[in-house]
């Protein structure tokens, strides 16, 4: 064997040799213990992503006095100054846990551009590969864990790589894959390729691999180290203890039902399991909000899923003492036109919309900003993407002005320095 001073590779080799005695009960025990030591839990973020652009005028900022309001009624909540849609009854009882920002105003009215800007905080510029919020958070906290630190649940993430932070901070996708592939209609909540087809076959292969690695003549290089590190992390994730994070069958049937049995409800439950295990950022996507036609029937149905999933998540996190360390953000890429179109639908509308924040450093029970009677104009507290992101970073103890070096050799701040955090919420 070669004689060179690269301890990391030697360590990895030793480790792989350790798999020689592999069985399901003793999978890489040394590594599993290392992971268990990470007890000092930093903050986490769960982003509930309402894909397609939700009609927030029918969720969080109703206009029952105006023809733009449509048929939905407003209901009272646990907070006297806050009313929300009648189709969010469970959340209404928990209003002291979350706050609504009713004065979001952005520029992009095209789905993909609006998604990119919402999630990276920046307008695409030349070759700069802006990482998504999840990558930034995962990179800042950099938790040691057998489970990836940024997990996307349901459909495809908007930014599939790690941007200029590199693939180590790319979203780990549950229920879909591919960089260019479009989201599958009914993606099942599972991690692609997490399990070998045959464990005994895998054992044979890993044994041969370990022995051949020990006689390998590959020169030391950062690329080889990175490859072997990815294999190492993948094997750690395949470790039944880590892989179990993704197994919802471990949860009580009653709790699973409480969250809602659809992919979104189960995704919220998965998010809780991941956050519990130290994952820094989880995105749970609920698709179908692009309601150009038949808005009210569809929003009603989606609201019921949202109500169950999000309310159960808030309650579950609070009961487990996790809510104080977990920020929840609920938003889409933009809102929808206050005016109702000819097909009882609403079209894209970035000028006035709402987001909901809860947990971590957020003061609940607040309503920030307002829109005009018809919902078309902002009435107070204009809030832009940069302001929202500054709030997100501040609420989890990160400095939005911190810089990371980008792929074009220009430092980029976590969020646009023009943004100002919403102080009322912090």
């Amino acid at each position, binding site marked *: 064997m070669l004689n060179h001073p690269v301890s990391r590779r030697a360590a990895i080799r030793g480790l792989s040799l350790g798999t020689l005695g592999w069985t399901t009960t003793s999978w890489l025990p040394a590594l599993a213990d290392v992971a268990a030591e990470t007890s000092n839990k930093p903050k986490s973020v769960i982003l509930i992503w309402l894909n397609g652009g939700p009609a927030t005028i029918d969720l969080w900022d109703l206009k029952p006095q105006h023809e733009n309001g449509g048929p939905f009624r407003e209901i009272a909540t646990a907070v006297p100054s806050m009313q929300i849609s009648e189709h969010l009854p469970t959340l209404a009882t928990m209003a002291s846990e979350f706050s609504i920002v009713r004065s979001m105003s952005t520029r992009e009215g095209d789905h*993909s551009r609006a998604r990119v800007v919402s999630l990276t905080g920046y307008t*695409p510029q030349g070759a700069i590969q802006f990482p998504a919020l999840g990558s930034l958070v995962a990179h800042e906290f950099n938790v040691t864990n057998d489970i990836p630190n940024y997990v996307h649940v349901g459909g495809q993430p908007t930014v599939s790589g790690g941007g200029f932070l590199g693939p180590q901070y790319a979203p780990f996708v549950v229920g879909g894959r591919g960089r260019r592939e479009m989201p599958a209609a009914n993606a099942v909540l599972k991690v692609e390729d997490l399990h070998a087809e045959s464990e005994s076959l895998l054992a044979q292969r890993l044994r*041969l691999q370990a022995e051949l690695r020990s*006689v390998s003549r590959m020169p030391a290089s950062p690329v080889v180290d*990175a*490859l072997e590190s990815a294999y190492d992390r993948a094997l750690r994730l395949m470790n039944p203890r880590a892989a179990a994070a993704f197994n919802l069958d471990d949860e009580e049937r009653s709790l699973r039902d409480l969250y809602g049995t659809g992919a979104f409800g189960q995704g919220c439950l998965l998010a809780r399991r991941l956050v519990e295990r130290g994952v820094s950022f989880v995105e749970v996507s609920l698709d179908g909000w692009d309601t150009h036609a038949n808005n009210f029937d569809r929003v009603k149905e989606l609201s019921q899923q949202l109500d169950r999933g999000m309310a159960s998540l808030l309650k579950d996190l609070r009961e487990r003492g996790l809510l104080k360390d977990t920020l929840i953000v609920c938003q889409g890429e933009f809102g929808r036109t206050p005016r109702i179109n000819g097909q009882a639908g609403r079209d894209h509308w970035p000028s006035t919309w709402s987001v909901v924040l809860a947990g971590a450093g957020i003061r609940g029970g607040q309503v920030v900003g307002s829109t005009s009677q018809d919902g078309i104009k902002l009435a107070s507290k204009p809030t832009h993407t940069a302001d929202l992101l500054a709030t997100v970073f501040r609420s989890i103890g990160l400095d939005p002005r911190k810089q990371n070096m980008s792929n*074009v050799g*220009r430092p980029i701040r976590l969020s646009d320095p023009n943004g100002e955090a919403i102080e009322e919420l912090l």
Partner: protein
Amino acid sequence: MTNWINDECRRMRPSWLMLLFMVAVPSGICAAELSPTDLSRRIDERLGLANADESQFADKTAFLRRLTLDMAGRIPTIAEVHDFHDNTSETRRGDAIHRLMQSGVYDRNMATFWRRAWVPQADTREFASVADGFELWLAHRLREGTRYNDLVVEILTMDTGQPATGKTTPIGFYEANLSKPENLAASSTRAFLGINLDCAQCHNHPFARWTREQFWETAAFFALPTRDEHQQARLPKVRIPDTELEYEPALLTKAEISFPAKLDSVSLRQVLVDWMKADRERLLAKNAVNRMWAHFFGEALIEPLDDLSRDEFQSGDRADLLKEIAETFIASGYKLDFLVEGIVGSKAYRLAASTAASRVPSEHPAEDKTPFRLHHASVRGLTGEQLYDSLQTAAGLPAERRDLAGGSTRGRRRDFPAQFYVERTHHAERSISQALALMNGALVNELTSAKSNSMLASVLSSPFMTLDEQIDTVYLAVLGRHVRENELPVVKRNFLASPDAGREQHLGNLFWVLVNSAEFNTNH
């Protein structure tokens, strides 16, 4: 610095008449006399490798694998390995280079390379749809032997208002930039000149060479000329968003422009590209050479790739070498094949990926005052396309796409490379999902059985082959080399350890282990 083109000219000492002619048109004539071998020699002299010998070079099979991956985008087939191994002539490397250059897969591979350099946005889901059309156009042009400068001209002077029916065009460049002047300005200068104007879009940076004004003046070349009250075309003005500031087209060098009499969108962009070709800084050629160098060596001569105009990158060994190669490239008439052959024919390209501890590259290589030397080849990660095509090749399946003439049934050939996207090969990283896909994914696992793997099928149906020969064949197919003496007993011992598994499973396991190895997943 001495101008070696002139050195070469003097050395040739042609006839009197010829000499007189050369004085009149020095570089043009002389370039015709220059061969790629001269370029290779000059690179090696510059790098102190003129006297490098076999002991420093990669062995035969490693060289062929590297060359085939870089030029054809896949590993060599078993037959190619055998042919190269059996060829003992002095010209075997040149033969291999020429054979690869003649293959259609070379044009396809280089089309992907240049598309990625020029339209990197197409590697994101948002703009993925433009990749195919752009690469198809490019592959056709490369096959026709179109010169580099003409490719750039065709892209930048495309009449985007004319719908192209039934023919391929570089429209993807405009689509990926949403046809917005500011995006096109940033992308054009970065892609074709290696200039980073991104920062200048928003503000004047105290140390940057380019101002915000210059950014928007460049953007104005991509705006549509307006018409005055007499229907006369007038220079367009672009306004910086949220300001009252407006700018007309102007060149980065502030050179005087004589605008065309017939002013329209195309002729306006023609002014910009004419300047790119004529500019004394030679950034058009330098950028091409620098990116090509990065393709074959991993690290470019000047890093980052899109900041060639920075003051501190104008001198030093790396800058000098870049300038020389760029001048030769221009003298060749911007012939890409000349440049490629010059680079892969050099001793520098033959260096072994040494097992000695790697020298840590300096943060800003161009500022490094120690002489620029290459001691060994860098280990580079495979791109997604290389990985997919190499997996197919290893399994004895055709890697080359037959769809150069059109067609969109790419399926896995599209999804798999996208899943294994790599930004820069010498800094390649792997994600957990990628590692999982290669270990447990359907594609690789299908290839571990003879049903889907023709290489395994033919090995298993060759009764005259001993076990040792079968194992060796799997090594040749996957790693492009023979099994080593210390590996063979390890493999056989492992086969014996699982006696219940049949020969197919044993060899399938070996295939799995080898395609999951660092040796297979890198170019070294």
